């Protein structure tokens, strides 16, 4: 792979006033964020906690982190080592780290926290280290520890405390959160003094707040990314990562039903859903994991094969009639569900939309839990209640494992959606990770007027 050279001398005019930039980060200021989510808890054990801007990572740190290539890096653990067989792991803890409530980070505190999130692991403190034993050989333990739900928490009664760059100053569940900079943070005090997050704001409200200068960061839904770009807003966009899919809660009960599920998958015009409904806010897919993460996603066919679907449908003796559920609070989900219904009808499959009660299949969005592909597939399988995939450490093995999950016909991938945020121009160094999570700890606010 060849890229451009690191230093390039540029012939240009000799002009004294250079363009602005190259500015060192400024300390101070409060970042104001508006978000649609309404998290009821800040506990990392709660799946909703990650929220819109990676809130969990700001308060609760993990033993291991993943870099932008999905490689494990030290977090609260400075090093780790597996005993032969990869069933027993020892994680050396960083010294001099305290929770926000003043408690020192110890092996005991880490063990107690991890046990709550991983009941199947045997976790033991070992002085300034922690030992984790798994039921079977597991090379993915370090990457698994980088998941948000493995954020280290110190619990005293109902109060929870983390070690991260920000501490919780005020928390009004589902409504408002104030985070304050941790002056004693081991990685250096954050540039921001505080972060204020208003939850439960729909897209229009967020946009109005941004335009009025009342917030600095809002979420942009995938279908609005293109428009926001055209409006000249400062947008940061992730890789296509959040999976939109149809999920069957039960296994197919007959050969006919298996064929009908396959025919339904073939019938859906995922390209049109992405290009028309979502305005290109994602990528049509037939895979569970996005191509940027695996390199092979394009090998799985991604619907839009009406002729193949009809051929498959012709072989079904007793075609089922299904109810399709979707999130009624999301207007885009409704439009997509209606399109799926029409595509299915075109090939002779009967669907009925439903917004309440149990349904035969459901339109869902699932965030990519990790930038490490094996951990991501494991978590996806867990979310979808599919059997845990088995693989070794190779792309071919991962491909086979993903293929096996798709062969269950329990899930029909549709689109990998992008995540995006719009920023006020004074917000600097906001990083959105490929999986859509945001890295905020290095954000700073420019004192310059845009």
């Amino acid at each position, binding site marked *: *792979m*060849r*890229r*451009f*050279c*690191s*230093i*390039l*001398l*540029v*012939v*240009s005019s*000799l002009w*004294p*006033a*250079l*363009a*602005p*930039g*190259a*500015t*060192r*980060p*400024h*300390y101070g200021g409060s970042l104001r964020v508006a978000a649609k989510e309404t998290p009821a808890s800040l506990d990392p054990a709660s799946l909703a906690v990650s929220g819109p801007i990676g809130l969990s990572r700001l308060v609760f740190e993990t033993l291991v982190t993943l870099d932008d*290539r*999905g490689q*494990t890096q*030290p977090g609260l653990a400075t*090093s*780790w*080592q*597996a005993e032969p067989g*990869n069933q027993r*792991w020892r994680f050396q803890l960083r010294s*001099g780290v305290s929770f926000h409530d003043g408690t020192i980070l110890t092996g005991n505190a880490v063990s107690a926290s991890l046990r709550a999130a991983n009941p199947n692991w045997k976790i033991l403190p070992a002085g300034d280290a922690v030992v984790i034993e798994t039921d079977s050989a597991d090379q993915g333990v370090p990457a698994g520890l980088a998941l948000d739900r493995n954020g280290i928490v110190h619990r005293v009664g109902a109060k929870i405390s983390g070690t991260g760059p920000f501490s919780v100053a005020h928390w009004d569940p589902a409504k408002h959160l104030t985070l304050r900079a941790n*002056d004693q*943070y081991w*990685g*250096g*005090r*954050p*540039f921001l003094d505080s972060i204020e997050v208003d939850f439960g704001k729909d897209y229009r409200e967020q946009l109005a707040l941004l335009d009025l200068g009342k917030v600095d960061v809002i979420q942009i839904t995938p279908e609005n990314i293109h428009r926001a770009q055209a409006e000249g807003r400062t947008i940061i966009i992730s890789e296509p990562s959040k999976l939109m899919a149809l999920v069957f809660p039960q296994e197919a009960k007959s050969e006919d039903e298996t064929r009908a599920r396959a025919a339904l998958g073939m019938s859906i015009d995922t390209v049109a859903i992405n290009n028309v409904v979502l305005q290109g806010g994602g990528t049509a897919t037939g895979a569970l994991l996005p*191509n*940027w*993460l*695996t*390199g*092979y996603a*394009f*090998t799985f066919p991604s619907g839009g094969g009406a002729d193949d679907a009809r051929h498959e449908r012709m072989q079904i003796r007793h075609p089922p009639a299904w109810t399709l559920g979707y999130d009624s609070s999301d207007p885009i989900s409704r439009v997509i569900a209606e399109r799926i219904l029409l595509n299915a009808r075109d090939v002779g499959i009967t669907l009925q939309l439903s917004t309440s009660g149990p349904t035969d299949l459901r339109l869902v969005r699932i965030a990519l839990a990790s*930038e490490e*592909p094996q951990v991501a597939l494991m978590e996806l399988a867990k979310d979808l209640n599919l059997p845990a995939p088995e693989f070794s*450490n*190779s*792309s*071919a093995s991962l*491909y086979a494992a993903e293929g096996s999950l798709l062969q269950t016909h329990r899930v029909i991938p549709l689109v990998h959606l992008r995540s995006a945020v719009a920023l006020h121009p004074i917000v600097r160094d906001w990083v959105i990770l490929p999986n859509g999570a945001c890295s905020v700890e290095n954000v700073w606010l420019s*004192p*310059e007027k845009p």
Partner: protein
Amino acid sequence: MLPRNPTNHQHSTTGIYNSRNPGMHLPSRARLACCVITLFAFPLMARAADWQPLIAQLSGKISAATGPGVIALDITNRSTISAADVEAIRRELTSSLANSGVRVWQPEQAAGIVKITLSESLQNYVWVAEVQLGVNEHPVVIVSMPRPESATNAQNAPPLALRTTTLLSQADPILDVVIIEGSPRRMLVLGVSAITPYEFRDSRWIAGSPLAITHERPLPRDIRGRLVLRKDHLFDAYLPGLVCHSTNAAPLGVNCAHSDDPWPLQTEEPHVSAFYAPARNFFTGALVPGIGQQKSAPPFYSAASVPREKYALWIFVGVDGQLRLLDGINQQSLPKIHWGSDITSIHAPCRAGSQVLATSSENGSTDIIQAFEFPDREPVAVSQKLELNGSVTALWTAENGEAATLVFHDADKGDYEAVLLNFACGQ
């Protein structure tokens, strides 16, 4: 700066992780010479990645799937592999398949087609082959190999007056570097947690034992530091709220202690120092002993001095982004000049007076360095722009005053690159 051979970056299978060692990209003798005698900013070399292991794997899997015979190859590139490399891969793969008894021919005369996609993920090159021999079964074979963390491509650069010499490249932050001339040449590298001595032997910088920097309080974000050579002991290292003095006795060591001592802004006469905010990334503005009658400036990120006949003109880049001139009596703002946070001054041997090196950014992601002179109170550019592939994290005047130590964070590699920056006089 050299691209790494992909074969050197296989996945670790030992199940062990330890913090990365500061790996160095040491300039070869030829490269150093190149830096000295040419006007190119970097003597970059690039070579095609070594695809042989992956070609051999893919060839083996394809021939196992097809058996001996004649096939057609259809190769699609969905990766960052260059077109030239794709052609090379096609040739090598064809040759490798032939060695396994699989001949590549035109589709109309082949028994089947093998559709190969050269793809990639975050971590790996992923090559996928779909073997289409019959009507029903289209087996897919996949081979992969870790991608190098980065690679660079040599480009010709036009002759320029600013010249760079690579000193060091490493994953960990570099706060300052000083070269100690002598035989052998030595170099001290100030990092966040250690000062590492190097010796230039056998055309390479050889790292010695790092001298640990101990501190109790967390150091601030965007950490900065300064190394200053001393006469009565080897060096002092200044970090936020911390000063480390080297020991006089062998072996070399350092003693670090919390201290708010001011940092030297200028090591040559007249000495001027400034207090650094211990939990921030800027100077408070208090000056020791001051500039003429002026004992302070507004809080600033960096400063540069331009000696005049009877006084020195000082230029400060304020935390508020304002450029200010202090001459010992008056303070003047230059609101129309928008420089970055880092400036410093050096003397070109071939010119009178001092030149100020200033950072800036035209696209917000990569920085530019340009040299200026102050014939009066307005800067006049005296060099062309030097564009860096990343953002400047440190810019200090080197010990002899004729060069500057520049550190930037490479946007592609993610490494910190330390270079020596000076003028190629007369060119």
